[in-house]
């Protein structure tokens, strides 16, 4: 372990890099992971830069738990359930098929590679990246159902890919492989992981009811990611699924229990945490290149150009072919599916093209052991690492950059379902509060003037919501934006007035902070920027 001072300097340096590249990336019409990876790659050629150690343990135990937990916490459970079949076919079926296809191609193109090594490579490159998928899908306007499907797939496929990977690594190190054992592992991993995740979520839910302190509760959510991961590892089940199950379960309970302060703070903290962690992951991914170059087999990249390109092409083509194959196959075989609506062709093409690989692939590749149990060195480790890295780069850059044009070309756009539901939800909420006020008024000894004041407040909003009923969502959104822009003028005026008071020394810093927070919250209440951003 290096001394804290130098570790801190490295972290500060990397964080500055992440911030600079991250803010730069947000201005470009390109998914930010691509900019970060390319930026990291460019930085890796700068001489004198301290080497960032990106070991597989670091990725698996520090970066991955919160990233996966947050992805699960953010995901839309209802949509996941509705798309359970296509998600399962992608997260399990496609992973298995990709692994086999890649193994076969690798065995053909790399002379002398053992089947177990070929299968390791296949498993390593088989799962898509949760972060990359989210970053791309949420930025581009595509139907929400499709987003949910892609996100759901990327949450779950890591687990199945890691099971295959472990089986292949065991086979290579010990020389034994049994399909029953792999299947049994898969079932145990999945069931155990999900059970652990749900159990941890319920336990923490119980603890959070004891503390009631909003900051402590926020800390608890961060801990939840790591606890579910660690317990999952300890019982030998899938830590990935434990983490995902924990995130999904906590999201469900978080809504109803817990205070508003906790929820607002949790949202803010996690947004920053995920931004920073993802930034680190992708920049480190790019920075990793010089260390990987050591693994290059004699003859350099050119010597493995053919297998490299063959594997990349296989990964992309299998995915493109899988979706229509599965959809039409299932419709031909199962009558009940045939009765349902057929997913549009554009969707299948887009989902097939959204196959960016990321950090799990890199971590798994780096974790490939270099010696067997008997101590003999295992060949082709370098090839596996280099080819995996190439698959990450090619899928991220080639597919990531062409997704936006593809979406435009396919004519896909947000179907407006979100906006419609948002209006419905707003109206229902307002109706409920007015009804509750009326009930309070009838039931008890409350100040009628107060009730009237609150009623006036809610009735005004109710009227507004009703006036937007049946209006085109785009028009309704524009009207909200107009209201919000007027509000923001007023909010600016208020803030300036309070700051002037404080400058004059009439109020103290503490009062300024309090008043400012009230004004800020008022602004957030009418913040239209967040609308439709998802």
């Amino acid at each position: 372990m290096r001394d804290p001072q130098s570790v801190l300097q490295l972290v500060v340096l990397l964080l500055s890099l992440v911030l600079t590249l991250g803010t730069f990336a947000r201005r470009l019409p390109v998914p930010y992971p691509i900019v970060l990876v390319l930026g990291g790659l460019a930085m890796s050629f700068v001489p004198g830069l301290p080497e960032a150690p990106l070991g597989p343990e670091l990725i698996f135990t520090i970066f991955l738990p919160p990233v996966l937990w947050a992805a699960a916490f953010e995901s839309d459970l209802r949509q996941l359930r509705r798309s359970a079949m296509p998600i399962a076919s992608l997260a399990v079926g496609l992973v298995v098929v990709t692994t086999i296809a890649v193994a076969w191609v690798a065995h053909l193109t790399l002379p002398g590679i053992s089947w177990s090594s070929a299968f390791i490579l296949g498993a390593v490159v088989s799962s898509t990246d949760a972060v990359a998928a989210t970053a791309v899908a949420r930025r581009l306007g595509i139907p929400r159902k499709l987003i949910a499907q892609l996100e759901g797939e990327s949450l779950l496929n890591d687990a199945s890919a890691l099971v295959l990977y472990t089986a292949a690594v065991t086979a290579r190190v010990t020389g034994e492989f049994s399909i029953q054992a792999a299947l049994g592992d898969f079932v145990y991993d999945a069931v155990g992981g999900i059970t652990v995740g749900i159990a941890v979520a319920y336990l923490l839910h119980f603890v959070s009811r004891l503390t009631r302190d909003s900051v402590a509760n926020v800390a608890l959510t961060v801990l939840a990611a790591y606890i579910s991961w660690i317990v999952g590892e300890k019982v030998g089940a899938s830590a990935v699924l434990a983490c995902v199950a924990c995130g999904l379960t906590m999201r469900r309970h978080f809504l109803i229990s817990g205070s508003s302060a906790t929820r607002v703070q949790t949202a803010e903290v996690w947004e920053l945490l995920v931004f920073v962690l993802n930034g680190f992951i992708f920049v480190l991914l790019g920075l990793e290149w010089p260390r990987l170059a050591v693994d290059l087999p004699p003859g350099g990249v050119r010597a493995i150009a053919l297998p490299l390109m063959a594997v990349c092409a296989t990964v992309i083509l299998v995915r493109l072919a899988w979706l229509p194959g599965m959809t039409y196959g299932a419709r031909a075989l199962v009558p009940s599916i045939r009765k349902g609506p057929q997913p549009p062709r554009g969707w299948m093409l887009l989902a097939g093209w959204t196959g960016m690989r990321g950090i799990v692939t890199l971590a798994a590749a780096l974790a490939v052991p270099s010696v067997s149990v008997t101590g003999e060195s295992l060949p082709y480790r370098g090839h596996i690492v280099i080819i995996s890295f190439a698959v990450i780069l090619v899928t991220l850059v080639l597919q990531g950059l062409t997704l936006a044009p593809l979406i435009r070309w396919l004519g896909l756009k947000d179907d407006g379902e979100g906006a419609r539901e948002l209006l419905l939800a707003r109206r229902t909420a307002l109706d409920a509060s007015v009804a509750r006020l009326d009930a309070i008024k009838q039931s008890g000894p409350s100040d009628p003037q107060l009730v009237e004041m609150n009623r006036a407040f809610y009735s005004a909003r109710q009227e507004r919501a009703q006036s937007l009923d049946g209006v085109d969502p785009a028009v309704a959104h524009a009207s909200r934006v107009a209201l919000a822009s007027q509000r923001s003028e007023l909010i600016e005026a208020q803030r300036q007035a309070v700051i002037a008071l404080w400058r004059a020394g009439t109020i103290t810093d503490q009062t300024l902070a309090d008043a400012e927070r009230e004004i800020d919250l008022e602004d957030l209440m009418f913040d239209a920027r967040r609308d439709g951003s998802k």
Partner: protein
Amino acid sequence: MSETFARVELFVMLLTAMLGLTALARRLLIPYPILLVLGGLALAFIPGVPSLALEPDLVFVVFLPPILWAAAYFTSLREFRRNLRAIGLLAIGLVLITTLVVGWVAHTIIPGISWAAALCLGAIVSPPDAVAATAVLSRIGVPRPVITVLEGESLVNDASALVLYRAAVAAMVSGAFSLGATAGSFVVVAAVGVLVGLAVGWLTRWAVRHMPEGFGQVALTLLAPYVAWVAAERLHASAVLACVAGGIYVRQHFSVEVSPLVRIQARSVWDLVIFLLNGIIFILIGLQLGPLRRTLAPGSIGNVLTWGILITIAATVVRMLWMPLGARLVRLDRGYRERNPLPPARHLIMVGWTAMRGVVSLATALALPLVLADGTPLPYRAEIILVTFVVILATLVVQGLTLAPLARWLGLSADDGSFQQEQRLAREHAAQAAIERLDQVSREEWVPPSLASQVRGHYERRLQRFHPDAVLDPSCSAEQADAQRRLRHEALVAERHALVGLRNRGEISDDVLHDLERELDVEALRQGVGHLTLGPPAAPA
């Protein structure tokens, strides 16, 4: 299992213990630093708990920068300026006197200790801790001047104690000491430190202004304390003062440079970071008992305990005596005397008794060099560290637990009304400004008249509420405010249950629920009911 995994696991367990102890502290109404230290002590006795030796570097570099920066950020500059002399007297004068007196006591009671080592111990235990003071006082109603002085003191005294500490260590290691050089270095170190802090603060402000709006800005505010710290260390200036100056500077400008969203985000993130750092640091202090026990020579525990208690008493007595003395000392200046009344004795007693030592003392003690210039082991190193540990424990537990009864006994309370007065004034001005701006904007053609009057009505109602004449009877208005909050809460609860119902019936997706829930949450915070958890849905009337 890999080493990284084991380390993460240990860290997670530590955090879990910390969260549990803070929750317990809230239940027992004990200031959390005390319970955390005691919990850490207890953990140190459990066999099988890995020993976590605190590295002084880690404390200085990882924990202190954000903690000090945040403490400075929440300091009111107006009050700090007004009490500058009182703060200076405590943070510089009292630190110096405490160092000398403790040094003398240590030299007298610890047989064979050199003057340099004794004074080093004095410097180590001289500064009270910023975090402990804030944590303990926040639960007790104490008048604002008392808090201002205590918080201001604890921001600056670490810097002066560190200068004395370095001089004493240098004297101990090399045998040379110069009073002039120490005083001179104090001035230079302080001035350069403040300049570095201001420069980093200015840079932060510049960068935040030129960055696109978003959490990049929040992350930048987290980075700033570390930059200030590292830069000041590189220039051999006071890193403590750099962080303090930077925090104060950024506070003065954060109001205008960032958007509301970023401010709310920054607040949430900082709250969490500070909560975690403070919690971990106190539990780590307690856990030090494990590694420290092993350094103790057999049979010497009684000695160390006696020395520690005697030194605690000496430091406390010096502080209690210094308070009335210092308060009169500043009044020798006539101008000051005319502007400021003599603070009441109760305030002086309260400030005098609030002197919990904390992490800076422990870290400086642990940072003592192992060997002298000629290579012989540093004499009394283990004793100094252990005595410091005893002083920290004794002040934290004895003073920390008796502060609340003392405040009650002295009849101190938080509220002198001026705070509420200023709050009301701020609200009134804000509403007034909004209405004026509204009248200007309403003339522009994009504003529908109905909308303008609707929004105007909202602000006029608020203006009425905050008008000075509006509050007739304080008790009535407090009741009314309470009722208002309850009503709002009831309405918000109804809204939320309606939304969850829609989601459960599958009429809206989770995404929509998340968006709207945020609106409700922000509104609840705005209405001052953000801390309330949701009750069960009300029965339909």
